């Protein structure tokens, strides 16, 4: 364990470590990336068309690994399915298995319906192993007539419609796990689900902007300026909302008569000053807000606008991660004695160490890369533009 300062209870430790930071991070990204795909699939926002299918694949990649950090953290991962067999409905954590499973199912269905024409096309046009692989993915349905397409689009709309509340519940629910714990002052707020939801959307849009830029760079294509601008606008809106709700939370706690919160907040500032004030607030929120305002309000070349959008998006992803880091780890620093604090020294190689968590965090990106090879998500229109 880390160092102790002052007096802490004998059994106090940082029990929730880096995997419990990575778990909500992956879940938030999965939800946020989904938001972008929904804007096109459900609300017909044509500006986001170039990234909507990519965002859908990203959502699938991230949600596929969202439960892995939890399994790593559990003392007995082999008993993980107890949560589905005998859930205690009074626990905020108990329904995770069902919500997560339902969301994953919806994502898989939507991916299949969205990419079905391409899958059928590849199954018919390719040969050998590739043909066999795509034939399996067709699930035996090769009809891509206009009538079948209409039905597909109807189903896609229905799935997207179902995914909106499910995604809200999934990301908000992660916030609820923390928000219902009165014993940890920095977590205890019933509106924590809203903070998680807004942060998730901002983080998801940010990551998609970055990955989209990387993918286009890799292909040698130009970024779709209208799409980048639209994503930047949504990013700014959700970043401002996130900041507003967090500020309200701060005001409510800071000016309330809650010595526990005051102590925990002081501990967070003194122990995690750099990650809280430097990274989460200044680099992760103030800087991207300024950059996004500049790129949306000022006249500039598309190249510079894209560069600013990508820079601010990277910072927003940093904001999401540091927000979760400061909340999860930082929330446990203050002792329940209010007379001391714990310090966190992450181990490199342990089960809950930096290396394992980094590998888990990278896994969705690897899966996304593979998925984009199997199911190319970019529109031909964009290709022509490049």
């Amino acid at each position, binding site marked *: 364990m880390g160092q102790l300062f002052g007096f*802490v209870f004998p059994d106090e430790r940082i029990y*929730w470590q880096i995997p419990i930071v990575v778990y909500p991070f992956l879940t938030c990204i999965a939800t946020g990336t989904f938001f972008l795909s929904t804007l096109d699939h459900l609300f017909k926002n044509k500006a986001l068309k170039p990234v909507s299918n990519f965002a859908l694949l990203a959502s699938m990649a991230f949600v596929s690994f969202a439960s892995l950090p939890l399994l790593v953290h*559990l003392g007995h991962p082999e008993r993980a399915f107890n949560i589905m067999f005998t859930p205690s409905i009074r*626990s905020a*954590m*108990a329904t995770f298995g069902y919500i997560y499973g339902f969301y994953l199912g919806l994502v898989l269905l939507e991916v299949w319906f969205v990419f079905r024409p391409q899958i059928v096309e590849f199954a018919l046009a390719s040969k050998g192993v590739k043909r066999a692989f795509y034939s399996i993915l067709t699930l035996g349905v090769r009809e891509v007539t206009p009538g079948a397409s209409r039905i597909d689009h109807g189903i896609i709309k229905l799935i997207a419609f179902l995914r909106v509340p499910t995604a809200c519940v999934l990301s908000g629910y992660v916030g609820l796990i923390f928000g219902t*714990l009165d*014993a940890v002052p920095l977590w205890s707020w019933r509106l924590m689900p809203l903070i998680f939801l807004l942060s998730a959307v901002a983080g998801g849009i940010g990551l998609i902007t970055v990955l989209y830029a990387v993918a286009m760079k890799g292909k040698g294509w130009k970024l779709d300026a209208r799409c980048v601008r639209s994503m930047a606008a949504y990013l700014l809106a959700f970043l401002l909302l996130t900041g507003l709700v967090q500020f309200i939370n701060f005001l409510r706690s800071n000016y309330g008569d809650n010595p526990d919160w005051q102590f925990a907040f002081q501990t967070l500032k003194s122990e995690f000053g750099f990650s809280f004030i430097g990274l989460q607030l200044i680099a992760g929120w103030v800087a991207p807000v300024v950059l996004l305002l500049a790129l949306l309000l000022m006249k500039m070349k598309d190249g510079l606008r894209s560069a600013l959008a990508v820079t601010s998006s990277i910072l927003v992803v940093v904001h999401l991660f540091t927000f979760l880091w400061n909340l999860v780890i930082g929330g446990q620093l203050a*002792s*329940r004695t209010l007379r001391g604090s714990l310090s966190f020294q992450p181990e490199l190689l342990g089960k809950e160490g930096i290396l394992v968590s980094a590998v888990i965090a990278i896994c969705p990106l690897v899966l996304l890369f593979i998925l984009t090879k199997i199911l190319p998500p970019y529109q031909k229109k964009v290709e022509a533009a490049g």
Partner: protein
Amino acid sequence: MRVNRRDFLRYACLIVPAGVVPLSRRLIGATAESSAKQKYSLEGHKYAFIVDSTRCIGCGECVRSCNMENKVPEGFVRTWVERYTTTKSGKVIVDSTYDVWRQRKKAERFNFEELKSVPAADISKAFFLPKLCNHCANPPCVPVCPVGATYQSPEGVVLTDPNYCFGCGYCIQACPYGVRFKNPITHTADKCTWCYHRIVKGLLPACVEICPTGARQFGDAAIAGSPIAQVLESAKLHVLRKDFGTNPKVYYIELNPEVR
């Protein structure tokens, strides 16, 4: 070898008791145990734990006996004793038997040593305070358990099933008293059980049994006129962190405001 009647009787007097006595003791013991099991009912109990901090001398024997009785892993405790030292300038210095363990490593005894950082002349007040799971009537650790591995027994004792707990640590975070820990051997949540395995046999928790001054008292308040019932009725009692609304069943006689 020929055995005459006199030798036969002599051997019989030695052999028969040697065989019969242990057998009969086992039989009597088994009967007593089974009758105790039959007698013990899960219903109708109102267990309570009283801590009289004015009697605690900080010997740490309670911690030692608990560790031995429950095979508590090194570096963790199910119960501990805190020492509060107030200087004449009003500064409060707190340490615990855990600090004793940290200083000694592999400590076999948990008695405090003299506080060297403060001269005796500067101390205005000092006292010891035992802590343990409060077995709250409204325990925050129970509803958060996603699989129901942490539960309240019919007698109101808060227990964790190590064979069902999957070690998520949610209950540890939910406890405002910091009495739960993740057992590094079983990888499940662990805490004081009031020695449940003993109390169902009519025995006292190990820490109560060993306490030389009676600072720790335990009993069934449902039994009218029992010592614990009398204390509950007559003494002015306090609980820890009343603001959390957990309704602890560990009551303190004398609780200074600096205690959390």
